[in-house]
């Protein structure tokens, strides 16, 4: 569907994007995720035709896009600022692009009505662009783009201007909308939860390069690098010694945990000298008095942080230079564990994450 091959973008001496290779499939909800300045918005603007690559090429639906301006591309964009025309009302905003097509008045009206009902803005057609709330502006921007029936919808941080509650509602709604229409969505975001909740696949970007492309579960459970792991949720990076390849496994001596064997995925090349082992905080479990698990370590609680549904315990485990973070749900009273007490922590053997670098 969208084929990005070997794309680079430089501004003077500044390299915004380097060697981007990416294929986005038809009907896919694809997210570009990364910190600000990683080049994700630049890449989106290259797809939309608002900027041109310094090298490489982009094609959409088999057609090369070089030299094709934004107004001739089968893409439409929801801008970060929403870019609602302040001098037009909602219906005029939505109809803006239709006026260029040869449609009868009735056809146009029907399409505007359909788009407005899709984003649940029926009845607001005559409201001026400058009189809308943030959530309404976002919906108008969406309707205005969708009414053009694009093959690809580009979304530049569309939820970042909304407050938390509305943002979470819109995540569900956007995903539902994409499933209903079935077109390709490309979303730019710096919010990992947003990307995990909505996407079919995610590309994590750092410093103008793609670090990893994978499905949400895959990218969360098996990040290929420390940076990706760190950007998506918490990760306890473990001190290891003597990491080595042993048949299908990567084996390491982990201080406090003993010798841990991790199965290699597929035919992946692992350099034991560069690889890191880690474990997600929620994969560590506090053991209550009568519980006994196969794999246990013990440590001392250094501090306790309450987050409502969960509690984060910072625990010093013998042998590990850095304290580990343990996230425990509050159903069994993790929020009541005293600081300074000794706890036993259980883990599963398959909970370890092996990062190539």
């Amino acid at each position, binding site marked *: 569907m969208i084929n990005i091959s070997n794309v680079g973008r430089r501004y003077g001496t500044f390299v915004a994007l380097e060697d981007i290779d990416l294929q986005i499939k038809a009907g896919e909800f694809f997210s570009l995720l990364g910190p600000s300045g990683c080049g994700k918005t630049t890449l989106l603007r290259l797809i939309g035709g608002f900027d041109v690559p310094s090298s490489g090429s982009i094609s959409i639906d088999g057609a090369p896009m070089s030299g094709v301006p934004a*107004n001739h591309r089968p893409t439409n964009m929801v*801008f970060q600022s929403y870019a609602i*025309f*302040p001098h037009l009302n909602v219906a005029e905003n939505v109809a803006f*692009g239709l006026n260029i097509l040869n449609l009868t008045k009735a056809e146009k009206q029907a399409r505007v009505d359909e788009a407005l009902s899709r984003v649940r803005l029926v009845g607001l057609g005559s409201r001026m662009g*400058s009189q809308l709330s943030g959530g309404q502006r976002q919906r108008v921007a969406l309707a205005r783009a969708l009414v053009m029936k694009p093959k690809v919808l580009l979304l530049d941080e569309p939820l970042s201007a909304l407050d938390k509650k509305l943002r979470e509602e819109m995540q569900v709604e956007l995903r539902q909308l994409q499933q209903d229409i079935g077109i390709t969505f490309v979303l730019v975001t710096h919010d990992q939860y947003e990307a995990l909740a909505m996407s079919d696949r995610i590309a994590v970007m750092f410093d103008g390069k793609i670090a990893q492309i994978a499905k949400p579960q895959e990218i969360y459970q098996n990040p290929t690098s420390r940076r990706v792991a760190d950007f998506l949720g918490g990760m306890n990076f473990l001190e290891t010694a003597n990491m080595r390849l042993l048949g299908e496994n990567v084996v390491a001596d982990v201080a406090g945990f003993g010798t841990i064997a991790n199965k290699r995925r597929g035919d992946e090349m692992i350099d034991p000298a560069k690889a890191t082992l880690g474990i997600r905080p929620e994969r560590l479990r506090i053991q209550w008095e009568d519980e006994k698990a196969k794999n246990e370590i013990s440590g001392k609680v250094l501090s306790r942080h309450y987050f409502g549904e969960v509690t984060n315990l910072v625990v010093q485990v013998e042998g590990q230079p850095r304290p580990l973070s343990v996230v425990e749900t509050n159903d069994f009273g993790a929020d009541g564990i005293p600081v300074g007490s000794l706890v036993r922590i259980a883990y599963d053997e398959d909970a370890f994450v092996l990062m190539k670098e």
Partner: protein
Amino acid sequence: MSTSPARKILWAYVVLYIVILYFPVVLLPIFSFNDSATPTFPLKGFTFKWYEGLIGNETMLKAARNSLIVGSVASVGSTILGICAARAITRYRFRGKSAASGLIMAPLFLPEIIIAISLLVVLLGIGANLSLTTVMLGHLLICLPYSVTVLVSGFEGFDPSLEEAAQDLGAKPLRVLRLVTLPILAPAILSSLLVAFTISLDEFILAFFLSGSEPTLPVYIWGQLRFAAKLPNVLALGSLLIAASLILLTTAEIMRRRAERRLAGR
């Protein structure tokens, strides 16, 4: 709002300041209706005769027409050039931008007499005849900084994504300009036209040096000041000019605010 004694004093000071600020401006219209050949208190009685005296005055009407022509050309010219400058200043980052914009704004910070004589020397040097055209050239130069100021504040609230959104929805560059850029900037543009026109209408020094035998209204008034008997007529004419300026400036301000409100709703 709490009103401490200090704030009351400050408030009284500001009111007094504004009264004194407006006093000379209000004085002219008062005397222009006064039935006396000299502007002195006490007032003698109400009359329209100084205004009536202006009606058949061909030279004055000619000067008014000249002012109108110069003001129109200068305001349109300075607004067009101002749009270019304001767009470059608000949209692009480039080395030397502050130097370039500083140069364009320079007439604001130079004694007018120096601008006037240097233009005069060059124009005479290249053999140009002093006329309304030379006044227009000069007025365009000094109106430009005001236009740029008004337009920059208009452009600053203008989200660049609006133009990109229009293009994204299929509009070609000219259509983007017609349907999005111009309508949104219209109030700022109108405001720049009005402000520049007022500046030109009011300007004396450049017009005095560059107008040759075709006076604008301020130059005409200057000429009339030699005749004490003409003073009441001058006051009447001046009052009309001030009224015109006030109306133009108020309209410009309303336009500017409307633009601001419209763009603020983002």
